[in-house]
């Protein structure tokens, strides 16, 4: 048990060393969501209306927080598949280390990475006029829900990385991630989408987290009257739990399966 934690931390520190060795990479990764904020907030923002009235950038920020967590899936996939393809995972498995550390260390590193991305985005939001109107307690809860989504998607990323194991398939993961990102209430109101697309967008786990965060931050929502829209916080807890319940065991199984 002691080794499980110590070894996990060694693996996490390895990622921190990656950041230090490649500051350009990490800065680019952090700036990408900021760029989307600026693009949607200023470039397209003029054409966006929030159904209940209210400022589009206030609506946008919680959506961007959640969307950035979904993009994190690509980071996880890239790291896990690269290790598998290069034989680094095998080397870890041949060492007398706690084998759980390979997965837990990765999880902690990715959560740290996402927490940093979130901090940068919060700063960016404050700079463009977004505020957490409902007080620090509820704001912390909102950020917690956002990170919970990231935590859940970690296991999807790890599972995909282990079973696919091909770094070059990252493009396919992106093709999977982007529609999920845009077919949601993260950037626009589902009310503006054609009926069935709007329904999918409403039930999207990303929408649930975005809507819950808007509610907790006291930001304008898109004000749908479906069950999903009315129970955003419940869904923002339930969806990640479901994802963890499915993909955590699958990840562990995939890791064990590496041993044929």
């Amino acid at each position, binding site marked *: 048990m002691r080794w499980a934690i110590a*070894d996990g931390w060694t693996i996490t520190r*390895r990622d921190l060393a990656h950041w230090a060795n490649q500051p350009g990479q990490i800065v680019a990764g952090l700036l990408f969501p900021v760029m989307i904020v600026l693009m949607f907030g200023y470039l397209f923002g003029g054409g966006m209306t929030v159904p209940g009235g209210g400022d589009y950038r206030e609506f946008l920020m919680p959506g961007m927080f959640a969307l950035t967590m979904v993009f994190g899936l690509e980071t996880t996939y890239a790291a896990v598949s690269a290790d598998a393809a290069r034989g*680094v995972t095998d080397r870890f498995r*041949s060492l*007398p280390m706690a084998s759980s550390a390979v997965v837990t260390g990765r999880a902690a590193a990715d959560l740290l990475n996402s927490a940093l991305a979130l901090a940068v985005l919060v700063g960016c939001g404050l700079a463009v006029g977004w505020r957490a109107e409902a007080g620090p307690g509820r704001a912390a809860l909102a950020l917690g829900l956002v990170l919970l989504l990231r935590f859940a998607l970690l296991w999807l990323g790890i599972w995909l990385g282990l079973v696919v194991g091909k770094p070059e398939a990252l493009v396919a993961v992106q093709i999977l991630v982007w529609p999920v990102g845009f077919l949601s209430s993260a950037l626009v109101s589902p009310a503006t989408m054609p009926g069935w697309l709007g329904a999918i967008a409403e039930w999207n786990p990303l929408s649930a987290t975005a809507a819950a965060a808007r509610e907790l931050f006291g930001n304008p929502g898109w004000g749908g009257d479906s069950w999903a829209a009315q129970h955003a916080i419940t869904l923002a807890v339930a969806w990640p739990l479901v994802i963890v319940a499915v993909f955590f065991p699958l990840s562990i199984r995939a890791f064990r399966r590496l041993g044929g």
Partner: protein
Amino acid sequence: MSYGTLYGMIRVTGLAKRFGATPALDSLDLHVPEGQVHGLLGPNGAGKTTLVRILTTLLRPGAGQARVAGFDVVRQAADVRRHIGLVGQHAAVDELLTGRQNLAMFARLSHLPPRAAAARADELLDQFGLADAGSKPAKDYSGGMRRRLDLAAGLILAPPVLFLDEPTTGLDPRARDQVWSAIRDLAGRGATILLTTQYLEEADRLADKISIIDGGRLAAAGTPAELKATIGGDRIEVVAASAADLPAVAALLGPYARIDADARRVSAPAPDRVAALTRAVRGLEEAAIAAEDIGVRRPTLDEVFLRLTERTA
């Protein structure tokens, strides 16, 4: 006396593994005593990597038993891992970390305390001629440097048993020589080494004993000299000036002589080399047979390899 000297550091009995319908290993037996460099020679797809992965606890065997340093690879996997070093077929180093960071990380994961891990990393960098490159990210290393870093990473705990899976495949001759000398150095320190290779030359130069596998089965085993002997050993060859003399020459060379009429050549086993040559020369003289050429030839390991693997291919 240690376990290794008594029972061998690697003991494989009836090992089998299949992937779907493909049998990658088929009732394989292998015994490597302590301190031996054992060459596992086989063409691509022979099952070399599969065997190494099973012995290093990365893959479960389908059937049979395997013990490394006295520990069962399935039931005592953790003990096995404490006694082995693995250098896999692809250089398994973290490209984004420096050489030093790579070694220190693997040392920490081998449960050396922080200070000892750092010291071990420096020591290994020195030993493998990477001290100057220690602070450069591994992605900027040449193929040979990366391979040496990989080799160093497999040696953190100075493991008594070392698995090297095609350690020189894809390297240029200079880098290959560096890896070879590193392996000789390790062998000199008494490590037991299982070295897989597709190159006969590599096995011939480095290994004390060679097992040739093909299609997951053992095709032959022995010292390089023994293997050369298995396809008949040394042969004496006489090229007669006239085809009419061939039967007489064959009679001279003994009951196992083979006639190749097109080449006007007679050949026969000559385990006693010089004596056989002397006998033949004298015999030819006495019978007044003119020979165009006469000599004793030792088969190359290539011939052994080709002969053994074309049979099953």
